[in-house]
């Protein structure tokens, strides 16, 4: 099998909290400590008030599908194709990109409800993945980590 072309994650002072959270199955969102504006992807300052002070909040991991693509070509060994990738509107208001599991590509619909779980990705990273919300009203596993 050929080598993945996915670049290794670039961890910085600004974003390492997010990857540490993902490792533990927690979806964190950066929050301005001064004006409480949420931001993703992470950055050093709040674009709304320019504060460098921030903390985080934990996301409900629920949202709706804002857009998606189904990828056929080219194919990278880190994924199975056709590969559905989505952009989700999280309930908290920020957006997130992740690959989608558990939905036939033809069944994808803008606005459909999805939840964020965590799973293994290239370079042994634990990262978000999207999947349909199970019939039960609560997220299916306490820490959101799938096998």
């Amino acid at each position, binding site marked *: 099998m050929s080598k993945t072309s996915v670049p290794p994650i*670039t961890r910085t002072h600004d974003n390492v909290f997010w990857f540490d959270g993902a490792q533990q199955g927690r979806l964190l969102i950066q929050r301005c400590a001064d004006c409480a504006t949420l931001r993703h992807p992470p950055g050093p300052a709040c674009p709304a008030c320019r504060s460098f002070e921030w903390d985080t909040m934990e996301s409900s991991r629920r949202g709706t599908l804002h857009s998606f*693509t189904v990828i056929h070509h080219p194919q990278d060994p880190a994924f199975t194709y056709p590969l559905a990738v989505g952009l989700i509107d999280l309930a908290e208001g920020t957006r997130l990109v992740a690959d989608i599991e558990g939905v036939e590509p033809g069944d994808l619909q803008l606005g459909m409800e999805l939840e964020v779980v965590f799973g293994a990705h290239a370079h042994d990273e634990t990262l978000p993945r999207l999947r349909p919300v199970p019939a039960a009203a609560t997220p299916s596993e306490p820490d959101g980590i799938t096998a």
Partner: protein
Amino acid sequence: MSQTFSRRAAIAGIGATEFSKDSGRSEWRLACESVLAALADAQIGVEEVDGFALFTMENNPEIAVARALGIPELKFFSRIPHGGGGACAPVQQAALAVSSGVADVVVVYRAFNERSGHRFGAGPPPFAYAQNTDQEYRNWINPYGLLTPAQQEAFLAQRYMAKYGATSEDFGRVSVLSRKHAANNPKAWFHGRPIRLEEHQSSRFIAEPLRLLDCCQESDGGQALVIVSAERARDLPHPPALISGAAQGVGPQQISMSSYYRPDIDEMPEVELVARQLWQQSGLRPAEIDAAVIYDAFTPMVLLQLEEYGFCGRGEAKDYLLDGHLEVDGALPVNTHGGQLGEGYLHGVNGIAEGVRLVRGTSTNQPPKAIDNVLVTGGSPVPHSGLVLSADR
């Protein structure tokens, strides 16, 4: 302000290698060949070149080309980031340099073996693996499988379709139009090879909703442009293509090909920003543009740009196309060289050369009307750039 450079500089020479899938020679040599061809076209001596304006992605630095061609002195050299998005910006740099007297003869070139060497469509480019802030944005797309421009731009196309009822066939008509123009352009890779909409519709999916025939080519080749003062250009053999507008733009929360965190991801405020500057600099309105070269790495972006530049309302570009406005005899002939879908993918710089030919009256698909002003655009959705080239009358 902007009046200080509008119509004070001109593109006086254009030159290119052949556009192929395997040039069989070095990128360095392609750069040199295209520079010599553009200087020969302008009838300006090689030793007179005193400036270069390039892409940061250009693999052939100005000093390598100056050395290879025996250009003795360079007084101005600058680089513009963002690949095809920045395509028109080196011309802005050149126009600023010659209109301010910093340099007299500035050459812009883009040369690569983008098919036989590293292919942008194959995955992240070599520089993507640098662990720095410039590439950090990849953290939020690449690990999930969005690895190529087509995959990254598909989100916008999907959203645009849902919002305005555009279909794959609407995108396909952009491709059909470009291939029709390319079929009549001997320089085009797809010369003599038009396509029907059914061929577009039956081409395989790359990243839904984008099909193979929604995607531009990957090409080997070099294209160069020579920029001098308008005054100097008037004494040269070809009618000058005056640079009446040249602008760059970055919009709110801009990210390279993944500005996914704006309220409306199918809108491109950086394009609107460039449009606004071009109209202000040139004193023109969209209705006064006689032809356009719209960056066509992927077909949906042609429709979105037509809307951002104000040629039609949001969501209306598919109907504007369907009504024949983009044809050679239409109100706004578009991509008369065949575009990057049909002629070749020189990161937009071959489109600037077509803008010059339209102003000169020498396109292989020259519209049957006077061409006074041509819009040329860079790629989107990345930081954007654009030009208005005008006839000297």
